[in-house]
């Protein structure tokens, strides 16, 4: 059960039970919807971008514990960041959960609490649960208003 406890750490369970920034930003100037057809997870990411800085970020949607916690943790990590920093964080996070050989903890931005999702790499079938919201963030930043999917 060790791998399971790595996956469902207390921090993950906490963000699943009480997700942060789970709301709609009425006057968001960027948003995008994401969908995972495999499990039916849906997520919408709202952004208030001002001069290249993410002033506010939120999400709505329903999904598994991993995807909900990933969304909650992501909004906390991104708030106040520049677009470029947000994109760098996505790259590093993706490389962490996909168990990329190139991953180097010391290179690039610090992941902080996002490291709690590292356990996902032991569960290849669940990696998409952790990355869907990030793909959706990317779409929102690029403001392609089309829904993104994990497929």
């Amino acid at each position, binding site marked *: 059960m060790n791998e*399971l406890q790595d996956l469902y750490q207390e921090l993950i369970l906490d963000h699943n039970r009480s997700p942060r920034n789970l709301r709609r930003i009425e006057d968001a100037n960027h948003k995008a919807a994401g969908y995972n057809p*495999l*499990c*039916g997870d*849906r997520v919408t990411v709202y952004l208030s971008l001002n001069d290249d800085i993410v002033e506010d970020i939120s999400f709505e949607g329903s999904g*598994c514990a*991993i995807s909900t916690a990933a969304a909650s943790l992501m909004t906390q990590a991104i708030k106040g960041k520049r677009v470029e920093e947000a994109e760098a964080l996505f790259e590093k996070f993706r490389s962490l959960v996909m168990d990329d050989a190139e991953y180097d903890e010391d290179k690039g931005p610090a992941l902080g609490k996002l490291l709690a999702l590292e356990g996902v790499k032991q569960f290849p079938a669940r990696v998409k649960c952790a990355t869907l919201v990030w793909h959706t963030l990317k779409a929102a930043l690029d403001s392609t208003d089309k829904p993104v999917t994990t497929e």
Partner: protein
Amino acid sequence: MNVQADTIAQMTSTSFDPNRIIKDFPILRRKVHGKRLVYLDNAATSQKPQSVINTVSRHYQQTNANIHRGIHTLSVESTNAYEAARGNVQRFINASRPEEIIFVRGATEAINLVAQTYGRSTLKKGDEILISTMEHHSNIVPWQILCEQTGAILRVAPINDAGELMFSEYEQMLSQRTKIVAITHISNALGTINPIRKITEAAHKHGAIVLVDGAQAAPHMPIDVQDISCDFYAITGHKMFGPVGIGALYGRHEMLNQMPPYQGGGEMILSVTFEKTTYNHVPHKFEAGTPNIVGAIGFGSAIDYLNAIGMENIAAYEQELLAYATAALQEIDQVQLIGTAQDKAAILSFTVGDIHPHDVGTVLDQEGVAVRTGNHCAQPAVERFGHSATVRASLALYNTKEDIDALTSAIRKTIELLG
């Protein structure tokens, strides 16, 4: 073994012994995460008995050749084995003649074949195709494509809170405009067994033809297409303990004869010139190109295996397992069953409190229990019950009460961890 012992073995095989059946499936001896594999994802695909694995391997080792075109010994033997498999399928679903069986890739291709040949050549703008809320995507999307091509209209008969077809609503939707009724025999997401004979009879009264998606029924109960009196019946080998990539479409002979071909190529022709090509007779008219020869032969071997046990025995045993599993799941307060039809196959779809089915599936897998989570390629059926996903345990002849106990104990662990 002497004759007497052989007879005794045959006699005992008529009484169902799951522990003997388990031994026929080598994969059931493997471990997953250090636990005994408890395979409860049979509605997705089934495991293969040693006899099927041997048949496939023996064919490649001893007989492999192309069929219907060689004069040499291997080709003749391969052709005979392939056509014998067709006969096996024919008898298994009680079709009246072997030409009524067309080998296809699976039930999905069988339905697409009917949509694109019978459907495309006969449907006109304003004609109606009637399906139900509980259909698998493979019995929805081919009809949507056909509607786009012909201007026909797709209509959907509703289901009730138990997951049963609302029969009088279905009857009321039938009219002279209804040309095709396409309905599943057993719902892959809910387990509902449809009153398929009654459904067919009502459709025929209005002049509609009926296609039955039998993918979930054929592995679990006796099928008699003449008794159902449907026009088409689609089945797939990999859910029937046979190889992947082979299935069969049953079509009434006079229907198949009228229908234009599906794909063009070798095998489906009698003569080809640049001016005029003459199509082959059924079933070959619908089997363009080199077919999945070894798949068909393996499929035939799987049917031999099922026949040796007896479909009546399998159905009775699975009903016993279903009753046990239903009671065991209902003992867990947080478990809510989705699909509680009176007439139900051994498919149990459920949710566990507020825990997302994906999380349930991950914890179960760590306990060696393989289930499906998601919408089961039947998104409208699952959404009908207000869910985007469920956990699904689908049983087969090699499952046991111990497997159900492993499932419920893993669900209790999930609740402990995530509830």
